[in-house]
């Protein structure tokens, strides 16, 4: 019960019931795409006592961040600090030599290396992963441990899907927690679902330290 725990890499994403994390035509000037900010209504309640505040606080209790390149750029690079100065590992296909990453940001091109470094940096806390691209890369590599999904009761119709470009292999999950605040108006409703990813192969050699 009290043995030291391996840091968990937990995806944290808000998505519409139809699976989109941003609306269409997302870019640096419109990071959530057309209409995509609808998904963040629930964050108006991020400091409320109760589930919405709890899940927000949990993200800020992580001690390392993994982000996809698009998410990182669209978020204005968080000006080099996502929260509390914890290390940010940006998963990217290409590192430009002239691009000096701000603050605690490091660029990593290999997903396994990215996961290992983030776990090592997190110490006894957890790692938060964000962005659809990073999520897919981590899932494909078998490096994602948990998912915390904030499912918003809206059909966006168009946009960028969280789950895409995955192989046709069933990946089994276990629902370990669900949180919903009561008496919230539909525009601010959200269902927080936490899943554990069931691994079929051991992640034996990837270096947890």
């Amino acid at each position, binding site marked *: 019960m009290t043995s030291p725990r391996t840091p968990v890499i937990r995806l944290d994403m808000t998505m519409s019931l139809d*699976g989109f994390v941003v609306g269409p035509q997302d870019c640096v000037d419109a990071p959530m795409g057309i209409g995509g900010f609808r998904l963040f209504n629930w964050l108006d309640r991020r400091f409320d006592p109760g589930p919405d505040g709890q899940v927000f606080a949990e993200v800020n209790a992580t001690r390392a961040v993994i982000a996809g390149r698009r998410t990182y750029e669209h978020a204005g690079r968080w000006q080099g600090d996502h929260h509390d100065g914890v290390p940010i590992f940006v998963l990217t296909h290409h590192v430009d030599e002239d691009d000096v990453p701000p603050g605690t940001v490091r660029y990593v091109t290999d997903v396994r290396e990215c996961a290992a470094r983030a776990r090592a940096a997190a110490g006894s806390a957890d790692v938060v992963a964000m962005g659809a691209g990073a999520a897919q890369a981590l899932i494909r590599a078998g490096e994602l441990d948990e998912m915390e999904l904030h499912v918003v*009761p809206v059909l966006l*119709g168009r946009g960028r899907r*969280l789950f895409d470009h995955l192989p*046709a292999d069933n*990946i089994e999950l276990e*629902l370990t927690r669900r949180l*919903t605040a*009561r008496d919230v108006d*539909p525009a601010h409703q959200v269902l927080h679902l936490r899943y554990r990813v069931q691994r079929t192969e051991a992640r034996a050699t990837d270096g947890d330290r």
Partner: protein
Amino acid sequence: MSPVIIASLQDSSSRPVAELSNDWKDEGMSRVFSTMAMSLDGFIAGPQDDAQNPAGIGGMRLMDWLGSGGDGDEGDGVEAFRPTDPSSRMVFEEAQSTGAVITGRRTGDFAGYWGGDHHGGVPIFVPTHQPPDHNPYERVHYVTDGIEACVEQAKAAAGERDVMLHGAYTIQEALKAGVLDRIEIQLRPVLLGQGRPLFDGLPPEHIELELVRVLKAPGVLHLRYEVQHA
């Protein structure tokens, strides 16, 4: 402040617990709801679904919230699929208490129209552009003048009972036409990776929903959303 529900799902204590207070049932008014099992990544069938393999590759994984289909004792039809878990059984029975079924042509064809009787002998309406030349089932009605007309006929046939709607494409058409009142999803804890999405080809205008019920059963989360008609 609002009372908060924090449910631990570690034990699968299976008493139905209705959450989220809304009373969805307007007495005496037939309502149309869709019901589909969906993977967390949004698929209702695996890839390469066809008549030989209606659930597609790996897609049968989505169906096992239902009963086994019987232990070889033929003859009880849909009853053999009644789940044992109380919450799942309640959801199953709600579908079985509807007064009419609307099914997509594809779903209907794949299922062989349930031998002509989905449950309780209620009529089955099938929106289609091309009805088959030969229809062996007296309870199966092909409707060629659109989803609105199909829903209207099904509601009329259902009387005061609700109408159940099945099939991804048909659900999309009903959503686009604004004739779907509720979306029921049996959310399964699995990523299929590829397959046939439940929500696809919808317009970019948002369709607002309200989550009105969450029921947890082993291996399935039953979600009920009310469509907010503008």
